[in-house]
């Protein structure tokens, strides 16, 4: 069975880490990832840019693009797509197409991916 492990933390706190703290965390995570990868268990790993670069669209009003991250606490994360887009405009068009196909409620939050490792799974 595949499991997604989703990362949550305070962006402000993470942004306050010193370079050494940051490098330490990344080195320790890297060691675990290497082990998982060697075992053939690691799928894609992505790091997203901070939410300040996010926009959100409601699936029911897909023409309306809101600045900022998804902030509705009554809805839960159900899944995600990783799509290559030349620009934010293309990403928004893609999300709007998905919204029309989906036809239901909820939202899509769009965040640039700053690091993507395929993992090899």
């Amino acid at each position, binding site marked *: 069975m595949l499991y997604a492990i989703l990362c949550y933390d*305070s*962006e*402000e*706190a993470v*942004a*306050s*880490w010193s370079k050494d*703290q940051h490098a*330490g*965390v990344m080195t320790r995570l890297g060691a675990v990832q290497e082990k998982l990868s060697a075992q053939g268990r690691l799928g894609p790993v992505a*790091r997203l*840019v*901070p*939410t*300040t*670069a996010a*926009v959100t669209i409601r699936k029911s009003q897909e023409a309306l*693009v809101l*600045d*900022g991250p998804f902030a509705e606490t009554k809805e839960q994360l159900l899944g995600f797509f990783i799509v290559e887009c030349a*620009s*934010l*405009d293309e990403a928004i068009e893609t999300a709007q197409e998905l919204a029309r196909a989906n036809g239901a409620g909820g939202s899509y939050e769009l*965040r*640039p*991916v*700053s*690091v993507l490792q395929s993992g090899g799974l």
Partner: protein
Amino acid sequence: MNEIAWIDTALAAARPQAIGALLRYFRNLDTAEEAFQEACLRALRTWPRNGPPRDAAAWLIMVGRNAGIDDVRRRGRTQALPPDDVISDLDDAEAGLAERLDGANYRDDILRLLFVCCHPDLPATQQIALALRIVSGLSVKEIARAFLVGESAMEQRITRAKARVAGAGVPFETPGAVERAERLGVVAAMLYLLFNEGYSASGGEAHVRSALCDEAIRLVRLLLRLFPSEPEIMGLAALLLLQHARTGARVDPDGCIVLLEDQDRHLWNGEMITEGLGLIDKAMRHRKPGPYQVQAAIAALHARAARPEDTDWRQIERLYATLERMQPSPVVTLNRAVAIAKVQGPEAALALIEPLADPLAGYFLFFGVRGALLQQLGRTDEARGAFNRAIALANTPAEAAHIRLHIDRLAMNSRSGVDS
């Protein structure tokens, strides 16, 4: 991460919000800072024992308020007592306060705190030093190091700046929309200067001073979280990120400046570029262009070019022309001339910068660009004269060394540019 490091990080992250709220409450910068200091000391004592509070900023504001009230009362400045529900039980009070802070309430606190540092009577460097001390919480020693001055000189500078601000009367009423926009503009300008203090450094200083760039980016991200729909703040964030992304490639191991087109683009920071490009795309969707967005759009065109020859100079030239209309300045025209040289050739560029000789008579890059254009036209003697003038005007040894490189290259008929 060990426990103390975790607490330090939490205190640093909560600082602008906590001091901003304490300033609103006490209406005095020194009292607000002392109250925050006291709250941090108590946090270091109690957090390891009781675990971290749910909302660190709310905890610090509450404890800082009580500490400040004690202090003010001791000094006999006021008889006012806080309402019982505020001081009797911290745990009960925390929930309510945290909720109130959740809203738009505290964004004006943080904006005010930044705005207070930008008092127009203060020279730019003092505004920046004050913001680093009060908002970022850097020590006087750290700030002195970043500004390459002695600790006691910086201490004096900050003390004087604080006295100036204290005497000026801080605007405490909740700002209206127009006022808020004005404050945002003033604060954005200060953050841009803060970034440039770090970015203009070179040689051995570059490493120390790039901390100023990191701090400017941290503060502009904070501003953007508070005001998520301001295109110019998005533009400023994008501009700083896209420029800072090149830091690793701008200076060679000997401390010499490497021009944009000679930089190893693999050394550019891809994560910062991704974030910067995302932000400028987002800003431009608002169709409310401003100087930061235009400059970020220029930086974005450089960032998108995998090789120097892929650079869209025609578009860059148009953007500089837009910037010239928004913010007429001989330096902007000089930059446009560099783009013109790429698109139309050195002759057209030279004609464009001729009228700048007077306003830019003391600017080393003017003579650097002029020299490079003359060089491309094969006017070697005149080029050498311009480069010599540039060396005489250079601000740092690295700038002078960079121009000397041009003189060495004169015989080789090489290329040049102004961006780095």
